């Protein structure tokens, strides 16, 4: 237990954080402290402080690449050719990820940014609609 005199500033912060106070002022012989909190929607719901959100590190961000058109999804440029990409592949910006066949044209979908393929989400040779998820990737 701490007396007012022996308080350290960290304890004061913790106390204030865990309280429901919106303002706190203290003046002692040696110092003056003033704390104020604008109640947020979150805080208003309860006294629990918002969990600390850890910003994702660049390499960990997972994004989904979706189909810009309606068509048939192909992972390979030709029936017995190797696939453009596989799980774990890294591709550069502009590299071809897959083909989507529409109106008898093979539309090559290029990566808009360098990334690593985490998962293939669409089924090869199946129909994809607009916005259908194709790949889960990590931005590099």
């Amino acid at each position: 237990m701490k007396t007012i005199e022996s308080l350290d500033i960290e304890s004061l912060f913790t106390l204030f954080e865990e309280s429901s106070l919106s303002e706190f002022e203290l003046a002692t012989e040696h110092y003056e402290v003033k704390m104020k909190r604008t109640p947020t929607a979150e805080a208003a719901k309860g006294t629990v402080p918002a969990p600390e959100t850890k910003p994702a590190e660049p390499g960990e961000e997972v994004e989904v690449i979706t189909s810009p058109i309606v068509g048939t999804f192909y992972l390979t440029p030709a029936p017995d050719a190797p696939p453009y990409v596989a799980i774990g592949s890294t591709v550069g910006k502009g590299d071809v990820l897959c083909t989507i066949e529409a109106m008898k044209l093979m539309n090559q979908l290029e990566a808009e940014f360098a990334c690593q393929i985490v998962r293939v989400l669409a089924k090869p040779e199946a129909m994809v609609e607009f916005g259908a998820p194709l790949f889960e990737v990590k931005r590099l």
Partner: protein
Amino acid sequence: MIEKILIANRGEIALRIVRACKDLGIKSVVAHSTVDRDTMAVEFADEHVCIGSGPTGESYLQADNIIMAACLTRCDAIHPGIGFLSENAAFAKQVEEAGLAFIGPASDTIALVGNKVAARRIARKAGVPITPGGEEALIDLDDALRIAGSLGYPVIIKASAGGGGRGMRIVRDEEGMANAYALAKKEALLFFADGELHLERYIQNPRHVEVQLLADGHGAVVHLGERDCSVQKRHQKLFEESPAPRLSEAMREAMASASVALFRALGYRGAGTVEFLVDGPSFYFMEVNARLQVEHPVSELVSGVDLVRAQIEIAQGKGLGLSQADIHLTGYALECRINAQGAGTLTRVRMPSGPQVRVDTFLESGSVLSPHYDSLLAKVIVSAKSRDEGLAVMERALDEVIIDGVETNLGEQRQILASKLFRCGTVTTGLYGEVITQRKNHG
């Protein structure tokens, strides 16, 4: 045989077509934008394919995505609905070339009647009265001045490829011609990518009457009577009714025969409408709508013919299976369009029900109205033995409507319905102005 139809549309008309498919035991696929994922048409269809994002240019006008969606879901046909690609000859041709049935007229017919000058020429040949005016496209401003001089002012300049009031300019005297010509040309290029203009005598506050037809493309043509669509606000129809009130039997019959003759001349296939302007004792051909129309339920109720079903059956090549003698027009029908005046969430929707009332809508409490699309919320259609009875039923039906969350035109529609002008059946395109605008100014 058509077993599965892709519906390239949204809103109430997409739902209307899904319902017709269900009634016929045909599978339906709704092609929809990302915004329309949670609409009733998508919910009730057998399948659905997202074809693009909210803006119509990125979804409902994406011909390639629509055709691919139809092919990949193994549809036999595409129903374009109303608006969007429904009167786009190039799209119809693309559908035909993909080996799919286009539920509508042949692409050539769409192209033909899409050009107002060409359509007027065919109409005249088929013996359909047309407004006095140039049957040829205008060459230049001088040509316009010369023709207007011989017709007498006021005249109206129209974009040959136009519609919906765009590329149209009324010219009241010689001095106004240069400016009007330039503006109409600019709009025609902007909206229709086609600067061709023509010029007709302008009819002030005419009635707008149209004849509904069905044809099988092999010579069988029937009409389902006419609809009066005069009550409009800025060229947008508000009320439609059949039979048209205060129209002589002679004109009614002449209009119907002229329309049938025109459709025969066109070798038309599918459902379509011939629109006329009525000016006192005369009527003039305005245009052909080579598609279903929003107000089609009015004709369904007086004829007992399901137009969407008929469209599909015609596309199946079954022939019309109907002769004019099979069409018995009985009673009266009236449609009231309820439009939104803004986007938002419909916090509460209560539509009317009960006897003599049909509601075509795709909205319910909680539906979100996207700003991307047109403002039609619901069509309330009543059937009755007579016009007087029909007006009473419509009044009752509109009294039951509650729409909370967005502004609507319900108040205005109730005012029009209650107005003396409308009650008496003296309807013209000037009615809205007289009932609503003037009341506001006096109020």
